[in-house]
């Protein structure tokens, strides 16, 4: 099928392959009109549809059936129809709904950003900054859990988890046997693991990267430094297990942590192995490619002077 579907999002038209979701169509256009997504992860099959932050209004179903869809739709799970018209930023209804979704996500989320290692690259932080209210209306106690060590390298803060299921998909799709999943239902749902079967798969570290909040954090980086004081640099090495293309986070001359390369939506497309992530923390292990591309508005780019160094003395 070579026919392409025309879709208009916030007045911007594009043509996409049939079967594309609204979210991916919006990402093809790019810019501000892309709905935020907490649970959808482009490189994980089956992710999406859980957090409801990507809700959009479909004001025209298709060319053949122009009736609007009765409810707001999760754009990560709704596929494009020909002639569809979608409102995201232009619809006050969507903005209001998203504010409600953020309030729901923050019901049990502790505001421990000053302590959390994810602060600065946390999707929920961005989202609550944009859409959140200043105070909570929730009168009951937040649910609290003890910290759990998943293996010796990953720490699970269940308090911070928003149940996006991304880490479960990583465990399902990247590692050969899943040892952690979601236990319980509804308000009782939590990420859990058979602790005695500590995750020793080579790709288990990727659940740190996919976690949109600070629920799964790198224990080798725990409290080492704040994200915005470290400088991300792209590097690669020959790895027999993974692609070996990573981001090194430097503080001075030390590599504080190694992560996968995240795109503009904070998603990793090339997952890296645990050897690269935990054991190669010296500059000589890597071939440096250059500074990582960081959004100018991101706090990570704060206090970094990226101007080209011009040598004063010409060595010829």
């Amino acid at each position, binding site marked *: 099928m070579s026919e392409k579907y025309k879709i208009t999002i916030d007045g911007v038209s594009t043509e996409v392959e049939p079967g594309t979701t609204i979210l991916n169509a919006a990402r093809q256009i790019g810019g501000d009109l892309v709905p935020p997504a907490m649970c959808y992860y482009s490189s994980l099959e089956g992710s999406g549809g859980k957090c409801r932050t990507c809700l959009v209004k479909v004001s025209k179903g298709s060319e053949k059936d122009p009736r609007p869809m009765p409810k707001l739709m999760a754009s990560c799970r709704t596929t494009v129809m020909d002639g569809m018209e979608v409102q995201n930023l232009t619809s006050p209804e969507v903005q209001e709904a998203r504010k409600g979704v953020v309030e729901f996500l923050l019901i049990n989320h502790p505001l421990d*950003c*000053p302590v959390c290692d994810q602060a600065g690259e946390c999707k929920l932080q961005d989202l609550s900054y944009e859409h959140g209210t200043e105070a909570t209306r929730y009168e009951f106690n937040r649910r609290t859990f003890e910290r759990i060590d998943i293996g010796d390298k990953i720490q699970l803060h269940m308090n911070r988890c928003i149940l996006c299921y991304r880490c479960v998909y990583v465990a399902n799709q990247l590692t050969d046997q899943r040892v952690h999943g979601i236990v319980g239902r509804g308000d009782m749902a939590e990420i859990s693991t058979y602790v005695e079967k500590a995750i020793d798969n080579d790709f288990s570290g990727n659940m740190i990267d996919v976690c949109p909040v600070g629920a799964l954090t790198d224990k080798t980086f725990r*409290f080492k*430094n704040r994200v915005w*004081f470290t400088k991300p640099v792209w590097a690669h090495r020959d790895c027999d297990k993974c692609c070996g293309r990573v981001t090194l986070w430097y503080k001075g001359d030390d590599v504080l942590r190694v992560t996968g390369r995240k795109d503009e939506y904070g998603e990793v497309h090339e997952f890296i192995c645990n050897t690269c992530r935990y054991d190669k923390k010296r500059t000589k292990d890597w071939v440096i490619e250059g500074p990582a591309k960081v959004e100018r508005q991101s706090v990570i780019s704060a206090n970094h002077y990226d101007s080209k160094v011009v040598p004063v003395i010409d060595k010829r």
Partner: protein
Amino acid sequence: MEKLENISLTGRKKVLEKKPMNFLERIYLPSIVQGLAITFKHLFKKKATIQYPEQRREFSVNFRGIHSLKRDEEGRERCTACGLCALSCPAEAITMIADERKPGEEHLYREEKYAAVYEINMLRCIFCGFCEEACPKQAIYLDGDIAPADVDRKNFIYGKDKLLEPLLK
């Protein structure tokens, strides 16, 4: 044609007339007496200055002096080394190293993370108070005295020993 130096483009140019001085102006005495009168008048006025180290002026309510790291009502350190003060600091005067609270140290630190090292370079600090504004934990306030002078540069780097509020006994 008018002379160039007399043309006023703004309309505010005043031409200074230099007249020859008259007799009283030439002997200068009235001007000297006038000047001395002002000088002697100030001898009987209230002094504008004070004897500084012995006498001190009251600070205004929004005076910004030396920083102090605060403790909570149970005497635990409030700072969690979140780094927002260092991020907001326009002079980049603040550095810190965080550490994790061990079990049994709950009476010392309020949160599970604390600042093991917290340093402010007082030579760089411009006392703008941004750190105080940025702090989410009400842990730093510029409520101290004027930063004292010193002869050695390294003495201007204030660590936790100088910044931390003393424990109330």
